[in-house]
């Protein structure tokens, strides 16, 4: 929990707080109302931040690197100190032209064909988790923690050749960084993600393999080895960005299926609908909201954004804009036209999108094969994460065994 409870939000148009539990519980309704009444909301919290909710505004900001910098992508009360153009976690915190260099040598690890090679790891993980749930014989199971959260952790640990048992540590780091940004103080350097990675990278330097961490250690930019902080930042990014996000998308998809027996039936009886259903889950429950720092004064939707202001990039809001999607507020399981931006837009398109999509598909396939029918044990017991990644964190299901 945060050190200090967040003050109540007086008015979402002028005092929004996406790290408040009320936002976590009600984000879609809040975003929809803002789009109608105040499409570029503002708050004085975090030292000043904006929240545009129209698809066109979100797309414009995502593609404008002159006025908006990625040096800060998670809104905190302070401004990031890591210098542009690299930032803390390249390439997500990098701006052009360095961004393209830092991104390019990662791309081959995350192409659809490279990701095919990890499908078996994901599937085995899912089957092991389901076997454990079945063996437990429990009628009520928290599927967010017993199933969804483990799948991305194991795959990214294997990609980096880090111990799977360290997954619990990853989740603590991620919780601090994403869900309660700037609201925790960690006194012990030995308990930080940076310290953990420093140790692991030093060990790996002595024992290089063909994993992604070794590759980064060996990589060079025009003959120069990457800076230590570059290697560390990119690995931190892969751990932070790949876990909470996929966990959230999978959790939301299962939450939806738990409440919609007709969609469960359609999934099982009509496999051709599955690829469309997955994209609709991603559109409707897009877990990730990014942020930018205003680098040059600019006007968006008639609102004056000034240098140093934050702006959220709400892909969840963009994905439910009726100007961009027909029947935007309805979940249409076989939606044929679906240009959703769950993985962002422009040059910062989520580099792990193929991995995330594969994990989501495999985890849903395996879950639905094992449990074609299930329901929420208690809808009020479901809790949602705060901050810029939104998904269920407690989600008790009643399972027929």
């Amino acid at each position, binding site marked *: 929990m945060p050190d200090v409870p967040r003050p109540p939000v007086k008015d979402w148009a002028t005092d929004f707080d996406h790290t408040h539990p009320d936002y976590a519980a009600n984000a879609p309704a809040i975003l929809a109302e803002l789009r109608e009444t105040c499409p570029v909301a503002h708050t004085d919290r975090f030292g000043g931040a904006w929240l545009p909710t129209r698809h066109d505004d979100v797309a414009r900001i995502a593609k404008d690197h002159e006025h908006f910098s990625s040096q800060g992508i998670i809104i905190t009360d302070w401004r990031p100190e890591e210098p542009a153009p690299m930032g803390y976690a390249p390439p997500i915190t990098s701006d052009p032209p360095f961004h393209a260099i830092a991104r390019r040598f990662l*791309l*081959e690890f995350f*192409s659809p064909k490279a990701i095919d090679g990890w499908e078996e790891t994901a599937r085995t993980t899912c089957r092991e988790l389901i076997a454990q749930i079945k063996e437990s014989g429990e009628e009520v199971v928290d599927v967010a923690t017993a199933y969804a959260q483990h799948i991305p952790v194991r795959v990214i640990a294997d990609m980096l050749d880090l111990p799977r048992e360290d997954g619990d540590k990853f989740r603590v780091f991620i919780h601090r960084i994403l869900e309660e940004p700037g609201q925790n103080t960690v006194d012990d350097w030995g308990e930080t993600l940076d310290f953990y990675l420093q140790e692991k990278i030093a060990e790996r330097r002595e024992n290089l393999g063909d994993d992604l961490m070794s590759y980064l250690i060996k990589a060079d930019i025009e003959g120069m080895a990457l800076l230590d902080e570059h290697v560390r930042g990119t690995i931190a990014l892969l751990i932070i960005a790949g876990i909470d996000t996929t966990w959230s998308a999978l959790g939301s998809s299962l939450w939806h299926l738990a409440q919609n027996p007709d969609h469960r039936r359609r999934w099982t009886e009509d496999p051709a609908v599955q*690829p469309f259903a997955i994209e609709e889950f991603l559109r409707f429950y897009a877990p990730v909201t990014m942020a930018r720092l205003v680098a040059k004064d600019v006007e968006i939707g008639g609102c004056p954004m000034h240098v140093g202001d934050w702006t959220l990039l709400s892909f969840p809001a963009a994905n439910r804009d009726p100007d961009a999607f027909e029947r935007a507020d309805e979940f249409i399981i076989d939606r044929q036209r679906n240009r959703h931006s769950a993985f962002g837009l422009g040059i910062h398109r989520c580099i792990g*999108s193929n991995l995330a999509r594969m994990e989501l598909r495999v985890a849903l396939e395996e879950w639905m094969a094992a449990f074609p029918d299930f329901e929420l044990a208690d809808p009020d017991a479901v809790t949602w994460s705060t901050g810029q990644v939104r998904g269920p964190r407690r989600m008790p299901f009643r399972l027929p065994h």
Partner: protein
Amino acid sequence: MKIKYDRDACQGHNRCYMLAPELFDTDDEGYAILLVDGEIPSELEEKARLAADNCPEFAIEVIDD
């Protein structure tokens, strides 16, 4: 029907490759490669439209004759 594909707009979302692998491949970095030069075979027209309609970057356009 023809397809116009804008490589500069493509950001490697891979939606076209998933929906229409007969028409799009991906390169080693995950960017799309248009496989068909010229006229789209009529049995693939629906897939071409799907690819165009689902590209988040509007990088694909179908041009009806």
